[in-house]
């Protein structure tokens, strides 16, 4: 099993290394939103001292921590797998004895992240020098956040993959996908730290899985959570991970049957 993953890693890494110059461009998409929101919220915080207790520096620290977390935990399954359902090339992968999404697509996701993180590091250092936030990350909080990052990534990966699979029935899944992205921006903590959402929205956001791959790891890393909150969110991660894995398997099985009916 490990050898399979190792092979997929070699293939995907070599493939994406070819396009390393393009990575700078793709990275722009990841950079713009957090920097825009950082600027907006620091402008607001500076004008009135703080926003609900958060100072301009807090916002800068929040978004600069969010940048790498966003890249580490986001998923690109829709872009690298979605079209295979649409044009039927998935058939080639189905005859292999490996699960197309849980091996090839998963590894492709990870190798893409590894490469783009390499590009992010120098840019992040420049941004750090430009905004000069006081980060509250310690070695302990960083280590504590590693399992949260891994589970967060798996949750977003399974959720995005499941939505991509809708294409088995509709051929293209950009509609549900855009809804997913929009909801994610609002409820994951990317647009705004969740504590600034209005009451009901905040409660909803804290239960839904979106924050588990962004707000939770960021706050955990920044030492902003109480032990109870940490335990609660880790519990939520485990529950969502299991639920989404089961859902993914069900949708995959049903979808494959539908797919062979179309292609066969």
């Amino acid at each position, binding site marked *: 099993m490990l050898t399979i993953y190792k092979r997929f890693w070699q293939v995907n890494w070599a493939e994406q290394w070819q396009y390393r110059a*393009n990575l700078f*461009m*793709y990275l*722009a*998409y990841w*950079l*713009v*939103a957090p*920097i*825009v929101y950082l*600027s*907006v919220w620091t*402008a*607001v915080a500076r*004008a*009135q001292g703080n*926003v*609900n207790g958060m100072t301009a520096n807090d916002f800068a620290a929040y978004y600069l921590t969010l940048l790498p977390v966003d890249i580490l935990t986001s998923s690109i399954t829709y872009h690298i797998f979605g079209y295979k359902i649409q044009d039927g090339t998935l058939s080639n992968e189905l005859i292999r004895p490996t699960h197309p999404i849980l091996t090839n697509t998963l590894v492709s996701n990870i190798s893409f992240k590894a490469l783009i993180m390499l590009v992010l590091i120098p840019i992040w250092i420049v941004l750090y020098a*430009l*905004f000069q936030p006081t980060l509250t990350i310690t070695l302990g909080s960083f280590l504590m956040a590693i399992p949260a990052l891994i589970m967060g990534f798996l949750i977003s990966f399974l959720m995005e993959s499941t939505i991509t699979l809708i294409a088995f029935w509709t051929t293209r899944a950009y*509609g549900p996908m*855009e*809804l997913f992205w*929009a909801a994610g*921006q*609002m409820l994951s903590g990317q*647009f*705004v730290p969740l504590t*600034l*959402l*209005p009451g009901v929205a905040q409660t909803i956001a804290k239960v839904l899985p979106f924050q588990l791959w962004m707000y939770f790891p960021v706050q955990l890393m920044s030492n902003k959570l109480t032990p109870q909150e940490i335990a609660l969110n880790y519990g939520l991660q485990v529950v969502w991970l299991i639920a989404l894995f089961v859902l993914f398997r069900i949708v995959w099985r049903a979808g494959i049957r539908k797919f062979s009916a179309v292609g066969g």
Partner: protein
Amino acid sequence: MHILRVLRAFIRVNLQQDLAYRSDIAMQIVLSLFWTLWEIASLGIIFSNTPSIAGWSIWELIALSGMWRLVNGFMISIVWPNTELFNRGVREGTLDYMFLMPLNSQFHVSVRRITIWRIWDVLMAAIFIAVGLSNSAQITTLPNIISFVVLTLTGLVIIYSLWIVLIALTFWFTKFDNNVTLLSALTNTGRFPATVYPAWLRLIVTFVIPIAVATTVPLQALRGELEVWQILGFVLIGVLAVFVSSRIWKVGSRKYSGASA
């Protein structure tokens, strides 16, 4: 006129292409409505925490969001589809045929594919701008309104010219098929007044990838924040941009030797 007849033919063909996928259009309009709600919600959240951003009220930001929608609509309906066609043309060599046609090649490349139903976005933009402006307390004068309209057009022309330069670069660097990625990634900066950004980013969105020139700057003119020399300066830059970009296009297209050659 020749050019107008060609443009009409292009529009007719594009309309037919779009209408072949009617449920797709319905889906896109639903999504566009949804994103509109998203935007209003996001502004609502920001302004539940503050009365203004960098001196702009919520109504002014709604107007700005209309301006952004205009630029974004231009990107989605013209820049993206035509860039895609252009890049494919360079890669596969089909661009050669385009140069053979008795039609200005820059014009041809710019309007070959137009997602017509995106006119919907222009409509939404107009509503946002009108609602935003009529509710904001700013008192404006006729000269301010005229400079607003002139600067909006200037801004769009400048962005158009930059796009032509970016795709023309492909004539020199054939592998440059990420030519508009930065432009489209930075479009989202137009949703907020450029004055909230740190100086370095403000410089980028005003002078390097000048999204703000079509979004923030016209509204600043409407608010009476710009001096006459600044307004004239932007118009002059617009005229220069048209001239320089068409020169670059001509020089580049002469250099182009085609993928098949």
